């Protein structure tokens, strides 16, 4: 295809805009990283800067030296994310697949229930009561796992719509004629054909688990069960306390600015690495699911 002058101009213009947007997105990450390797005093006096006067790896050394605490939190986050995401996708698939079938009896009731829980929920206090007095998840790993697992009707609806519009029902019928059981149809037709949307949902859920600190805040006070995000939150709060009441926390000194930046950077590193490999599914899944639904 020969490009007209107009096309070329558009391409140049689009590239320039995209580059600018990319810089705006990347800038905070770069700044965060540079701050984490800036020498503490330089950071305090000059503030955050992309070109600091002095560099230092003290923060990362500190992380390495206190690795038993920090890596423990890291392991908690990784564990919760992996288990949580797997369970989440499985649950969503098990709910969404039957709902995508036209022959499911009582479908409208189930659909209504799904939709209803998106719009209405019990609110924080009743939720807290149920979790602590009925399920007793306080100070257990379940506190980090369960709450996010159950608020997934939105994802279930996306998946349902995707499966309904992209997997022809004739496929299921032919499988049935060939003698496949319901579970086998689910496993060998619905799951592989819905891969883009399942990856999308997995990314949603994974990010959600990875970045979650509110559940830790509400339900976990045992320091051995902190996730990495909660640990950051605890550090920041301790500093607030210090300024407010003029008493240092009982043990250890206040983590420096650089250290907080370094932990934040370490905490998002895995996401930064994994994310690019998932985007191809992500785009496909999201557009297919939403546009055709």
């Amino acid at each position, binding site marked *: 295809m020969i490009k007209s002058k107009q096309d070329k101009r558009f391409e140049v213009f689009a590239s320039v805009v995209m580059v600018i947007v990319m810089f705006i997105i990347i800038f905070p990450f770069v700044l965060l990283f540079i701050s984490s390797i800036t020498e*503490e*005093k330089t950071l*305090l*006096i000059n*503030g955050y800067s992309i070109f600091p006067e002095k560099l230092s790896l003290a923060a990362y050394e500190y992380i390495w030296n206190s690795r038993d605490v920090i890596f423990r939190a890291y392991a908690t986050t990784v564990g919760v994310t992996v288990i949580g995401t797997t369970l989440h996708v499985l649950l969503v698939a098990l709910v969404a697949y039957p709902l995508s079938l036209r022959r499911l009896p009582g479908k409208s009731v189930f659909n209504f229930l799904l939709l209803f829980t998106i719009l209405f929920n019990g609110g*924080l*206090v*009743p939720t*807290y*009561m149920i979790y*602590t*007095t009925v399920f007793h998840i306080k*100070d257990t790993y379940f506190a980090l796992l369960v709450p996010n697992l159950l608020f997934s009707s939105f994802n279930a609806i996306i998946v349902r719509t995707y499966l309904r519009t992209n997997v022809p029902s004739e496929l299921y019928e032919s499988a049935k004629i060939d003698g496949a059981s319901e579970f086998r149809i689910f496993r060998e037709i619905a799951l592989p054909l819905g891969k883009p949307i399942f990856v999308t949902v997995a990314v949603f859920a994974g990010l959600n688990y990875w970045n979650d600190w509110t559940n830790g*805040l*509400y339900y976990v*006070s*045992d*320091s*051995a069960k902190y996730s990495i995000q909660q640990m950051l*939150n*605890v550090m*920041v*709060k*301790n*500093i*607030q*306390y*210090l*300024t*407010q*009441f*003029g*008493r*240092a*926390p*009982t*043990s*250890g*000194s*206040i983590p*420096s*600015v650089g250290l907080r930046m370094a932990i934040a950077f370490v905490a998002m590193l895995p996401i930064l690495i994994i994310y690019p490999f998932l985007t191809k599914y992500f785009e496909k899944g999201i557009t297919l699911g939403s546009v055709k639904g």
Partner: protein
Amino acid sequence: MKKLLSLLLVAVLLLGLVAGCSNSSQNDTANNDSQGTTNDSDTQNDTNSEEPYQVNMVITLPATAPDAAAIERVTAAINEITLPALNMTLSLEVVPYSMYLEQIPLRLSSGSDMDIFTAFSALGPSWINAGYIIDMNDYLDEYGPDIIDTYASEDLARVCSMDGFLYGLPVHKEIAQQPTIFFRTDILEKHNIDVSNIKTLADVDALFEEVSKLEPDMWMLAADNTAQGKTIVADFLGTTTASTCVLNPESSTEVVNLIASDEFYEWCDYNHKWFEKGWINPGAASDTESYYTYIASGQAFAFFSDYGHPLSESDQEANCSGTDLTMVQMGEPYCNTGTSAVFCYCIGAGSKDPAKAMQMLNLIMTSPEIMNLLNWGEEGVDYVVNEDGLLDFPEGVDESNVGYHLNAGWILPNQFMCTPWCTSEPDIYEQIQAYNETAVVSKSLGFVFDPAAVADEVTAVTNVRSKYYKALIVGAVDPDEYIPMYLEEMEAAGHQKIIDEIQRQLDEFLANKA
């Protein structure tokens, strides 16, 4: 079908009836129980026939909590004391401060059975209005006579009261604040500067002038944008807008607008001058970093503080990562409701038996053994007594590997019962008590403002405050220009109505007291 439905209906109704009955009968027995304990407490020796009552206690700490096994070990040791004495057991939970503001209100509003817990006294009024906590007056009279004796005066014991509703018992610590300034000792020594005569902001100004010439790269002052001008002696009467107070509270009871006062103007004016000269950290107005960080990093020279008590210098040095500091007291220690009860211990509305909770609190606050256990852990495991009678880590144990070591007497019920740690002076608690006696007491001591009647105005004024306050107190803006603007907006937000309401409540309080 209809038959089935009606049957179902009958079944449900019956069930409700039964449930209702069983509830009320439970209540009856509970009432009997508590009456039982009333009698029992007179003859405490034969309580053992009853099932021990478990008191749930929650302590807040600005640090990570000890692990669960260590807490269990310590509570087991505490229970060896409480079981024979009261036939009660203690279940202890340590909630880090970082979660306190979210977790505790959640628990209170979900009716958790917390009996005793640490509270920020400033939150008391809103928690009373929400029905989270109980009035401790009657229980204190009946079950806590020994507690009252641990305070210097009965007024101090009942200082956490709002309109006659006693919501908490203040933690034993220094009850006064004091206008104070801290300097880096190394700089003072380097240039041989004497700071002992510093008393006013003008003195500080002259000193900064001198030091800034000697140390041109340094910031003279690490500013704190969270508190009011720390040289201003005022009683804020439990209000939260930081603008209504009584100035000269030892003699006056007139509620005034702090922002319109000469004291506030003087503070802002000096700070503005210093800020303009580059003597204050340039980001002060929006900084979320603690000012201690700037001292610790060697960049700043001085900071103002409210804390002038005997422990303060070592406290602040610890806050500044061990930087050697020199403390100069710029005024007399002053005591009011806010300073004498920063933290208190409350009994939750969900407590199954407040009377027993109070008995437990009474025992904790008067027992050196329990207080030592709470603060320092078990003897022989977490600490040993050294030859001076002070406490120290056992052989091979230090701060990094000790099992239970809160070292937070100032947030525990009664640290004066504890044995001091070897790093502090042996008579440190006597020193604090002596310091407390030197404090100038506000005439309005014990008054806490109930903002319910003017809640809208308070919100409006707080919003105005967030626009001006920080920038003014760190000197980032010109007070001649901004204070009038601030005042005008406050007026429009209904500030006078708040002042009138506080004055009305205060007059009533003073009339009742007299």
